[in-house]
């Protein structure tokens, strides 16, 4: 006799409903992006695939004037990727080095400096956005990748995580390395970075997604269409839609939205396997 486990069944049911609830909007956006502008205008949102998948995405990705006046979605994708990767990598490098200094070098100001860094958690970008803008503008870095990324990469959160992690590394490891003739730099590169792999992967994932979704700073920073990120592009295209007198190009907006969600999803999927592997293997 098959015994029905109601507990498991109800659990799965709730999970399935939750998953459907979360993915339904993505599905609708994706399906709507495969229809023509007329269909969308006449019949509203679509839940089944239409016949314009290739033409819509081709137009958005590669044709000048497809979405904006001249910039294409592929260019915006590149900009977003640069921002996401630069932002995440920059944060990891800066916070690893800062945490290394704070934990392993005994200098008098280590503790106060750490707390100052920690307190900047209270000051998000939005609070300092005007002075930051002024600094970047005076350095003639508007509409450049450097200007886009550099003001964002100092990270109290990252520094804090790495500090906690380094503190949990047994001191004997450092001592063994010193006896093995490793200087401060070698210890960092040969020992500390490899054993932080898990942490690095975790912070890269989180920070890439945060960087990718940056909105306010790129919005203020970039005036040239060529420097738009995808997120800004979406905002601009909706603005055009609501202002223009032509037939609204909703299918392109949806295509752009779908494109904007793909890279973070890919990054999470790829790094997740590393992440889990790291967690399983790094038993000390």
């Amino acid at each position, binding site marked *: 006799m098959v015994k029905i486990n109601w507990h498991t069944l109800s659990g799965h049911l709730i999970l399935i409903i939750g998953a459907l609830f979360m993915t339904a909007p993505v599905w609708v956006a994706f399906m709507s992006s495969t229809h023509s502008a007329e269909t969308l205008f006449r019949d509203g949102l679509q839940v089944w695939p239409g016949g314009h998948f290739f033409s819509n995405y081709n137009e958005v990705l590669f044709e000048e004037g497809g979405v904006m006046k001249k910039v294409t979605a592929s260019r915006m994708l590149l900009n977003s990727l640069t921002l996401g990767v630069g932002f995440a990598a920059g944060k990891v490098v800066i916070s690893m080095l800062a945490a290394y200094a704070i934990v392993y070098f005994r200098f008098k100001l280590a503790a106060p400096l750490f707390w100052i860094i920690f307190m900047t958690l209270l000051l998000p970008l939005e609070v300092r956005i005007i002075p930051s803008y002024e600094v970047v503008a005076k350095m003639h870095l508007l509409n450049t990748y450097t200007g886009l990324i550099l003001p964002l990469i100092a990270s109290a959160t990252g520094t804090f995580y790495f500090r906690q992690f380094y503190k949990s590394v*047994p001191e*004997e*490891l450092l*001592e*063994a*390395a*010193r*006896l*093995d*003739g*490793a200087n401060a730099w*070698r210890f960092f590169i*040969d*020992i500390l970075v*490899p*054993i932080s*792999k898990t942490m690095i992967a975790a912070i890269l994932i989180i920070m890439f997604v945060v960087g990718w979704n940056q909105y306010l700073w790129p919005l203020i920073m970039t005036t040239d269409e060529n420097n738009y990120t995808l997120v800004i592009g979406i905002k601009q295209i909706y603005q055009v839609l609501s202002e223009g007198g032509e037939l609204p190009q909703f299918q392109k907006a949806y295509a752009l939205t779908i494109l904007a969600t793909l890279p973070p999803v890919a990054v999470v999927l790829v790094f997740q396997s590393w992440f889990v592997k790291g967690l399983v*293997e*790094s*038993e*000390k």
Partner: protein
Amino acid sequence: MSTVKLTNVNKTYANGAHAVRGVNMDIANGEFIVFVGPSGCGKSTLLRMVAGLENVTEGDIHIDDERINDVSPSERNVAMVFQNYALYPHMSVRGNMSYGLKNRGDTKEEIYEKVVAAAKTLHIEDFLDRQPNQLSGGQRQRVAMGRAIVRNPKVFLFDEPLSNLDAKLRVQMRIEIKKLQRKMGVTSIYVTHDQTEAMTLADRLAVINNGRIEQMGKPIELYKDPKTLFVASFIGSPQINLISVQFDGNLLKSGKLEIEGFKNLPTDENLVLGIRPEHLRTNDNGPLRLKIDLVEQHGADNLIYGTLIDAVSEAGGDLEICLRVNQKQEPQIGDVLKLEYDHENALVFNKDTGLRLV
């Protein structure tokens, strides 16, 4: 061929703690020295100063006539085995063993040969390509030793290397460490709080208490001829029996208990009589009476714990003592045994200074 010499070595931490106080020591080439003492006595600090992991506040450390106070740890050419092994978790066994050689600038061929040779000595050649987390505790301990011997150092330093192993492995590794050290003839310093390890491994033993060397010498000398109360009570298992006594010019007295046979002791000081469990014997005419509380059967012999009748402990209560007897003797709990002791092995200390008088 290396000697180690410590001259009036002191260590004071920034918070004012005086961890090591005026240590002098000459270690001969190839000697196996063990530092033993209770937790926090400064034995590890002393070892770490030799390794270069702690600064020397005052005094000099020489290896082979070279003053090494200001020489960096890696240039002292010493190797250390840590309690928690401190293997690099992300490197294979081979990587762990080669790392120091690589930093020293040895060529790949040299490194390969040395690592294989060291691995053979320690019987870990089959694990060379494994990661530390795929090894058992004993194997990790071997790798940690391999990492030390592969560099062919002047001095081996061991910081409680066996404390993380189970009892059986500990005995096995202890024997192997001793054999290995004999074979290689490398001067070694070994820190432990386990007096069995200390007694069995050491050529010479330094008992450290409160940052000072209480006594240094061959293990058997420290056992037979301890200079202080601390050494007498630290060395020997089970612990020496200590009886607080006063001398009245003729007899040693503890409560109503009176013990004969001692002469020329000060009458105006608090004394302690120390008798080891193995120096007590049952004898129907003996002067001491013991009421049995507990019998521990260890196989070859039995340990009898009980109250020494008439004697008073320091706190004013019953005085517990222990005696070691042959396993054929199986006394019952509650029995009273009459005991005699080896007079020539009885030790008398000044209670306040801890120094031995007889």
